[in-house]
């Protein structure tokens, strides 16, 4: 019987060889593709097991990870969820790092960024618990709060910038949402919350300040038109321009009327400053005709239109259409036709004028620090473009100051501070109340803050809501919050 026993022993050896091959195949050959399978919970948990870095505003966390007892080890929480939702985004174990800084800085926050490679190695050797980096934002909490309170229940957005650096001081989009609901560890609750937010007609997940559906800028765009006119060399702030009750548009039967149904000045003539001050449609419409669509478009591009910015949240480029015919140019000159902007872009227009004609690149992340507080990266202010000459910027400033001191934007006045601004009331579609706009900066002689406010559909006032009545007070509050010592 010994021969078959020996042969059976060979069979056993063969069976074990099969097992050695199969385990090798799984643990060596297939290992990385198995690790990358989407439903591999271990990979997800490995990301969660590392403490995610906080997102800080003035040293206080607006997103932080706290240890939990469950499988996921850490719970992401947002102490002031509604106020910062569109800045932080959310970090969900079901939907991943969604929107906001959570997504755009995911690698740094989670600690898997290449910039942190060396530190990970050190942590491995020293046995220190690895942790993601902390991301400090440029946000001014007072300005953020003022913007959010000002909008209240109205739909719209506010962006405030430091015109000298491009640092984003406030970024608010309403309606907002509670990212804590998406960061929970209860699968069904998270899924329900996600479903609710996506089904919500008000679309709270939309970041209207930088990446919503673009808005028509209305009369705030007249600042760009004025900039183009002044830069052309044939105009200055005192140049007298025609301002009839209605502007006859060539090639069409449509005319361009003034909002206030009447001529803008005695004899249908007025200075450029006055035209901006009272937001005279016919004057700027005729400027559009004179300058042509391309001049408007080029001036807009110098303010940052058409630029795909990343702050590092991705910003939808604002647009002025190419190849407009004369009537389209006239409409574009007053911010109608197909001119479409983000509130951030309009804040950049105000900031460009404020900063002596130079537009700074907007940014939201000030500093990224490792767990040991070493600075990993720090954002240096960068010039994006020169929009207008210093001289033109000063003329524009003087014109915009008049708007607030004695024009359509008086409700943005701040006692003891010279404010420069421009209102806008943007029609969009028949029957709907226009969007109320206001862009401004202050103090006019030494600008510390530039702001853009849009309130959709006239806000609480509806058809009675104008830029000057609805949006200007919000802008004023935000600027005051920044200027307060």
């Amino acid at each position, binding site marked *: *019987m*010994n*021969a*078959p*026993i*020996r042969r*059976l*022993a060979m*069979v*056993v*050896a063969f*069976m*074990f060889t*099969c*097992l*050695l091959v*199969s*385990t*090798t*195949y*799984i*643990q*060596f050959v*297939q*290992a*990385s593709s*198995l*690790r990358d*399978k989407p*439903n*591999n*919970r*271990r990979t997800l*948990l490995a990301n969660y097991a590392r403490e995610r870095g906080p997102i800080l505003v003035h040293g206080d966390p607006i997103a932080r990870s706290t240890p939990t007892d469950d499988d996921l080890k850490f719970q992401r929480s947002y102490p002031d969820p509604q106020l910062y939702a569109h800045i932080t985004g959310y970090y969900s174990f079901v939907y991943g790092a969604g929107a906001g800084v959570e997504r755009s800085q995911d690698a740094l926050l989670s600690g898997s960024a290449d910039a942190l490679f060396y530190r990970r190695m050190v942590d491995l050797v020293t046995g220190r618990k690895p942790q993601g980096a902390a991301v400090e934002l440029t946000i001014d909490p007072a300005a953020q709060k003022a913007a959010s309170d000002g909008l209240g229940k109205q739909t719209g957005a506010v962006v405030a910038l430091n015109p000298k650096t491009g640092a984003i001081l406030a970024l608010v989009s309403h309606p907002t949402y509670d990212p804590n609901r998406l960061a929970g560890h209860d699968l069904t609750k998270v899924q329900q919350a996600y479903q609710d937010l996506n089904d919500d007609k008000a679309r709270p997940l939309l970041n209207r300040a930088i990446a919503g559906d673009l808005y028509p800028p209305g009369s705030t765009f007249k600042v760009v038109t004025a900039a183009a006119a002044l830069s052309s060399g044939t105009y200055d702030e005192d140049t007298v321009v025609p301002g009839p009750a209605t502007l006859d548009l060539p090639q069409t039967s449509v005319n361009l009327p003034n909002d206030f149904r009447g001529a803008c000045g005695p004899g249908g003539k007025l200075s450029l400053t006055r035209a901006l001050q009272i937001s005279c449609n016919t004057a700027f419409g005729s400027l559009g005709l004179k300058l042509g669509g391309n001049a408007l478009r080029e001036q807009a591009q110098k303010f940052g239109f058409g630029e795909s910015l990343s702050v590092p949240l991705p910003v939808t480029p604002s647009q002025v259409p190419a190849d407009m015919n004369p009537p389209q140019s006239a409409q574009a000159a007053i911010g109608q036709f197909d001119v479409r902007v983000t509130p951030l872009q309009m804040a950049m227009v105000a900031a460009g004028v404020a900063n002596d004609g130079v537009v700074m690149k907007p940014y939201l992340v000030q500093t990224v620090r490792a767990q040991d507080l070493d600075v990993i990266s720090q954002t240096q202010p960068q010039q994006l473009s020169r929009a207008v000459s210093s001289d033109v910027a000063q003329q524009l400033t003087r014109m915009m100051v008049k708007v607030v001191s004695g024009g359509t934007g008086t409700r943005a006045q701040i006692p003891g501070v010279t404010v420069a601004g421009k209102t806008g009331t943007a029609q969009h579609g028949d029957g709907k109340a226009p969007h109320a706009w206001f862009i401004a900066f202050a103090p006019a002689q030494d600008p510390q803050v530039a702001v853009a406010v849009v309130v959709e559909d006239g806000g609480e006032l509806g058809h009675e809501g104008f830029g000057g009545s609805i949006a200007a007070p919000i802008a004023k509050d935000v600027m005051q919050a920044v200027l307060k010592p």
Partner: protein
Amino acid sequence: MATITTLAPRTRRGVELVLLVFAVGIVMLAYVNVGIAVNGTLPPSIIAYGVGLTVLVLAVHITLRLRAAYADPVLLPAATVLNGLGLVMIHRLDLAENRSGGEAFAARQMIWMALGVALALAILWLLRDHRRLQRFTYTAMAAGLVLLLLPLLPGLGKSINGSRIWIGVGPLSFQPGELAKIVLAVFFAGYLVQTRDALSLVGRRVLGFSLPRARDLGPILIAWLASLGVLVFERDLGSSLLFFGLFVAMLYVATERKSWIAIGLTLFLAGSYLAYLTFGHVERRVLLWLHPFSAKALEVSDQLVRGLFGMANGGLLGTGLGRGRPDLTYYAESDFIVPSFAEELGLFGVFALLLLYLVFVERGMRTALGVRDGFGKLLATGLAFTVALQCFVVVGGVTRVIPLTGLTMPFLSYGGSSLLANWAILGLLLRISDQARRPAPPVEPTNLAGSDAVTQVVRLR
């Protein structure tokens, strides 16, 4: 005149003792490793576990010195490492699942190990010669059948996870199939030793194959039907494969006829295919085996997939004991204990474990080669082969070589019945190996004085 002197065979008990020190050392190291990885401190329970393990294996070692001095020196250390590492992994999963005190699986497993060792000791003390078991051939058959049928009895049998292979008495549950494989090995060995001549010599040669007579097919057909019965009524693919595989292997060894293997494989494949066509649960198993990542399969179960993820997570070197997440896999301490080890000890750790099993099995086979009686050869072969086959079915199942079945890894997995059965197998193999290696009794020189002495009288003690 040249004289031939034979070296007195050594007992090798000293070697065994050294290997046992290593075995217990490895296990303790692993235990400390888990404690430090999970809690950052030396676990206080290490003394209890260390002393318990040492006492148990020393009891077997001393018994061997007294009762089976020539037993194989490698079998016990191999089993010690496997059982000990199993305890460590079960303890590690206890920590992950927050089971402690009487709830802790490791504590229960320790008790079962003690009972298993007691069973092995009983075999070594009470069974002085394995050939005595041959007397119980047909008793073993009856016992085997009863054990197989017990789970089907209403009231006594319990269905757990779709398989009806358990019996429950009060809070205790037991898998009689684990013990059935031992008594069936005894029965097969006794039966085949008697009938091997008829089964091996008579027959015709067809195409170079010597085929048996039709009427000699009876036993293999009965075994086939019985294993199909286990598959159908107890819904247990693994046990079914194990019993039939055991029978065919022993039949082959007894008769030296390859045709039995061909016939056995044909019958098995035919039976499996029929079962695949007929029974939903077999069909699902095949789906999970071939397409574990398909949406349809994931609807049925993601157990296999979780095990695969665990193994992939381990990679070559593993996460280290206590640093992976084997608790994410269902039955990580029993059916899926190999993926648990694969995750934390890596591919190298799994290789070490598999080679340890291979050493255990091959030492069993060597025992079969060495022992002089046919019954002992068949029994040792059968017992060693069940261990090998069970490893193949379990590891092959979790690594997708064959469809996944519900069997436990010998010595390693959590489970009382399995542990008892495997220590009994170890006891029997030790007993047989003692016979295999023990020198032939010395010839008594008393009657050699007379030159006319033609015959020697050999007296066996």
